[in-house]
């Protein structure tokens, strides 16, 4: 019994020849030995012998087959090249798409115990994930028992000065528990300890590897040196390794976050990001449960501030936005589609070649080669092709990886460039093997099948209906996958158009923007700040070619946040929680520079100061929301504990970017910020509208800024048009990649149709000859071939459109409001399929018409 199982391990041809005799020898041996132990020994010996023999025999056959295949493939170079190229395309595209999807969506973030890390947010009516306020953070931290540690961080805008050019940096300020929690270790020095984030402790800073190299020449003597951040001295205590990113890729430095007692006063001051680590054994569901209880308790204690505020326990991966997630998934799906298409093309190539080689194979069968050996030989051939294609494909993907780096979202703690690691290569090789076996097996079985029967029937070269149906099915699959890709691409193009045609609420052409973020202790008082603005704006407005210039706290799109609750006279308190507006302080000239229309009332004026009436310009949506069908001018609302009077109404602006809905906007005069309050909102973004190319103004504006304050850096210089374009830049790159895939798919489908029809025509030459001889008109023959193409295409389009609708539904998050059944796109996809069918069938049809009846029948 055992022996029989072991014998099955041997290759069939070997088994067929020698198994009986080997069995006889084993039987003889068993008879010769006595005693249980020697029998067991014999059994073990036999097992080892048979296993070794089986492996060796298989290797031997493989060696022979590989040698034979290389010889055969080298003889038909065109076929080999085509097959390798087709496979390389599919495997390459899939590998590249998978490695980026893996990098962004799948691979674990590079933090210690990343599975136990959670992001904590506040859910307030209208916003599911709001940055928690320091007071709620402190209470969560002290009241919970589910998290082992909890830390907070926030963005930090600082001017680094002292050595070299002053530079404006977007760093991060973190609590001391944060770095130990994510297992971050410095390359030099130390990370923050509890002493660093106490209110009033001496300033300490940790540098990123990039900043350390660029600014400090990679000098390890930088430790304990003092650097100036916004004019204050900070001691460098550590340098992080090059592959450390937190919370985003480009963060150049970290300072310790301190809370002054005053920070805990306002529970609605939302600005922290909170990261927490679950205790071992505690599930996210348990944590959610407890955080909900804590929220209820906090609402009971602070019914006004924490009204309807709950805690949201989220996954770290939610940092990848739904749009990026959908786009990357679509990319991977498209790559799989392309792989399927290349595989079917490979199978079709192999089938056609197999039919061509029927005679050769029939002869080899006649010479005594068993079917198993022939199938094995053909499979070795297809495996070799697939492996060669796979290796070329992987190399191609490794080359293409840097081009895809733009698709890696910036807001993640991962590197921009990604490598193709062992797992992805493993997957690619697995796919390659499956391709080779899966798409080689059917042709191999069919070919040997045909050869066996071919030998019996003689050499009539008709093509069996079953075989042609299979090839037809493969082509239908190709057409439908390419239709899916084309339609998805079309939908994304429509979405991009939609976005590009969205009115941002301002006119970006001809506007230069730049940032001068004023360092805070130095500019805490409004007087020096106002002097700076006045000096810069006067200088800039005097430049030739400048039509208007103005400052704002944050340009639209650059910052979507800055949202505050507003309270309008007489509104019931419950509704208040939902009424929020995005707040900006602006100088006169900002609306003119941006061409944001003033629809009623007046602009902010230099005469609006702390001593005059507090006035505000609100957006049209603000008016629609609070005073529908009423005159808004002169009405009041409360914001920042101040009563504001509406002096003007401006057009709506897409502050959160073109694809998202934005809150109503409130603009306040820059002179009405009280001394030392809201330093983050101090105007820092300058917009300058010129008559010509805005880039020509940069040098002059830099000089003006340097004259106003030689230590003040200028950063983020770009045209407003570029700034708007960055908003949809990942989408454009993504569309290009997907478009490339769709074009390839289109081409592959054409090749597939062409291949099938050419083969059908050449194997039906005699039939066509007879038809022509008995009087069929060439037009009929032409139509016959085209009809075949049309049927294949029609079936493919029907299946493809249905699948495309499904894909469109799945992609809805990335479609910016374009319906997934957009008729124009679907029509365009079908039209492309018609072109595909025509392009694929025209040459075979022409060849069919050119068949010479006489020679066609003579060859029979």
């Amino acid at each position, binding site marked *: 019994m055992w022996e029989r199982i072991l014998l099955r391990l041997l290759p069939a041809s*070997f088994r067929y*020849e*020698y198994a*009986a*005799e*080997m069995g*006889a*020898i*084993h039987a*003889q041996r068993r008879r010769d030995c006595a005693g249980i132990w020697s029998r067991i020994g014999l059994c073990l*010996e*036999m097992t080892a*012998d*048979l296993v*070794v*023999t*089986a492996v*060796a*025999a298989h290797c*031997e056959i493989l060696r022979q087959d590989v040698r034979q295949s290389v010889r055969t493939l080298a003889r038909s170079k065109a076929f080999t090249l085509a097959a390798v190229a087709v496979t390389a395309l599919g495997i390459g595209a899939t590998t590249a798409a998978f490695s980026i999807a893996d990098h962004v969506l799948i691979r674990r973030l590079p933090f210690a115990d990343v599975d136990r890390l959670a992001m904590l947010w506040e859910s307030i009516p209208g916003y599911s994930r709001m940055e928690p306020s320091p007071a709620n953070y402190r209470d969560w931290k002290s009241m919970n028992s589910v998290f082992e540690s909890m830390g907070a961080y926030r963005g930090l805008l600082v001017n680094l000065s002292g050595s070299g050019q002053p530079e404006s940096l977007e760093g991060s300020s973190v609590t001391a528990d944060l770095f130990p929690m994510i297992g971050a270790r410095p390359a030099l020095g130390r990370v923050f300890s509890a002493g660093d984030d106490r209110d009033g402790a001496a300033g300490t800073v940790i540098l990123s590897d990039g900043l350390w190299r660029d600014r400090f020449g990679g000098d390890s003597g930088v430790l304990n040196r003092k650097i100036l951040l916004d004019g204050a001295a900070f001691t460098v205590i550590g340098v992080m390794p090059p592959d450390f990113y937190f919370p985003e890729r480009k963060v150049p430095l970290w300072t310790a976050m301190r809370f002054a007692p005053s920070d805990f006063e306002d529970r609605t001051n939302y600005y922290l990001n909170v990261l927490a680590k679950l205790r071992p054994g505690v599930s996210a569901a348990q944590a959610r449960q407890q955080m909900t209880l804590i929220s209820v308790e906090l609402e009971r204690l602070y019914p006004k501030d924490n009204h309807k505020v709950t805690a949201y326990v989220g996954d770290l991966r939610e940092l990848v936005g739904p749009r990026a997630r959908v786009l990357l998934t679509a990319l991977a799906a498209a790559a799989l589609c392309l792989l399927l298409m290349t595989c079917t093309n490979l199978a079709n190539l192999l089938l056609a070649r197999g039919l061509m080689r029927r005679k050769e194979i029939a002869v080899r069968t006649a010479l005594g080669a068993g079917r198993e050996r022939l199938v094995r030989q053909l499979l070795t051939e297809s495996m070799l092709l697939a492996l060669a294609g796979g290796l070329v494909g992987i190399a191609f993907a490794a080359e293409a990886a840097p081009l895809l780096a733009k698709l890696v979202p910036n807001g993640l703690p991962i590197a921009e460039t990604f490598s193709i690691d062992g797992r992805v290569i493993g997957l690619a090789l697995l796919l390659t093997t499956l391709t080779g076996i899966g798409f080689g097996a059917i042709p191999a079985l069919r070919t040997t099948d045909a050869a066996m029967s071919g030998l019996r029937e003689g050499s009539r070269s008709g093509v069996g209906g079953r075989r042609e149906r299979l090839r037809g099915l493969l082509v239908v699959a190709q057409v439908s996958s390419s239709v899916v890709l084309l339609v998805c691409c079309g939908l994304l193009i429509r979405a991009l158009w939609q976005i590009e045609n969205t009115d941002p609420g301002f006119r970006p052409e001809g506007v230069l923007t730049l940032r001068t973020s004023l360092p805070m202790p130095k500019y805490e008082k409004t007087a020096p700040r106002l002097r700076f603005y006045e000096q810069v704006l006067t200088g800039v407005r005097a430049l030739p070619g400048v039509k208007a210039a103005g400052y704002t706290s944050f340009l639209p799109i650059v910052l979507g946040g800055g949202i505050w609750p507003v309270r309008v006279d007489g509104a019931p308190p419950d509704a208040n929680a939902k009424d929020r507006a995005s707040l900006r302080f602006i100088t006169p000239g900002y609306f003119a520079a941006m061409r944001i229309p003033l629809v009623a009332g007046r602009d902010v004026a230099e005469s609006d100061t702390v001593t005059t009436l507090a006035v505000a310009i609100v957006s049209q949506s603000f008016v629609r929301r609070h005073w529908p069908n009423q005159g808004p001018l002169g009405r009041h609302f409360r914001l920042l504990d101040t009563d504001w009077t509406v002096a003007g109404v401006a057009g709506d602006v897409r502050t959160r970017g073109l694809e998202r809905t934005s809150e109503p906007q409130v603009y306040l005069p820059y002179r009405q910020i009280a001394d030392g309050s809201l330093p983050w909102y101090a105007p820092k973004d300058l917009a300058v509208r010129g008559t010509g190319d805005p880039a020509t103004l940069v040098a002059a504006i830099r000089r003006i800024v340097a004259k106003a304050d030689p230590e003040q850096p200028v950063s983020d210089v770009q045209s407003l048009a570029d700034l708007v374009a960055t908003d949809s830049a990942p989408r454009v790159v993504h569309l290009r990649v997907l478009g490339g895939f769709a074009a390839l798919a289109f081409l592959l489908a054409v090749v597939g149709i062409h291949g099938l029809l050419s083969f059908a025509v050449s194997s039906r030459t005699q039939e066509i000859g007879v038809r022509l001889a008995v009087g069929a008109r060439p037009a009929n023959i032409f139509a016959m071939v085209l009809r075949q193409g049309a049927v294949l295409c029609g079936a493919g389009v029907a299946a493809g459109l249905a699948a495309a609708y499904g894909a469109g539904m799945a992609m809805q998050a990335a479609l910016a409001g374009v319906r997934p059944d957009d008729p124009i796109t679907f029509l365009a996809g079908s039209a492309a399929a018609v072109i595909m069918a025509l392009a694929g069938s025209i040459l075979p049809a022409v060849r069919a018409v050119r068949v010479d009846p006489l020679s066609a029948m003579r060859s029979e």
Partner: protein
Amino acid sequence: MDPLALLPLPAATFHILLAVADSDRHGYGIIQDVAARTGGELKLSAGTLYRSIQRMLEQGLIVETADRPEPELDDERRRYYRITPFGREVARAEAGRMAKMVEFARASGFAPGRAHGRA
């Protein structure tokens, strides 16, 4: 084919050639002959034997023979193998190669014999 191209022969192949040198033998017969010749030192396993036989058939060193022994001694499952003239040539070439190796070994004092005695 040049007999020298197959040299050096794997030990099992050489032993099988020796076993079938004077009479046709079946598989188990070969195993027994080899064991007897080497005083039980080399016991070919069934796997090694048939893998060698398969290759030797392909190389034309041996052939399967249709001649069977007397029916009362025969087992119909058995196949008998006979050495070919080419097989003899190869075996001779291998023996010559080995003899030469032994010469070399003697010259270096690694083996007993004339060269060693003279020294």
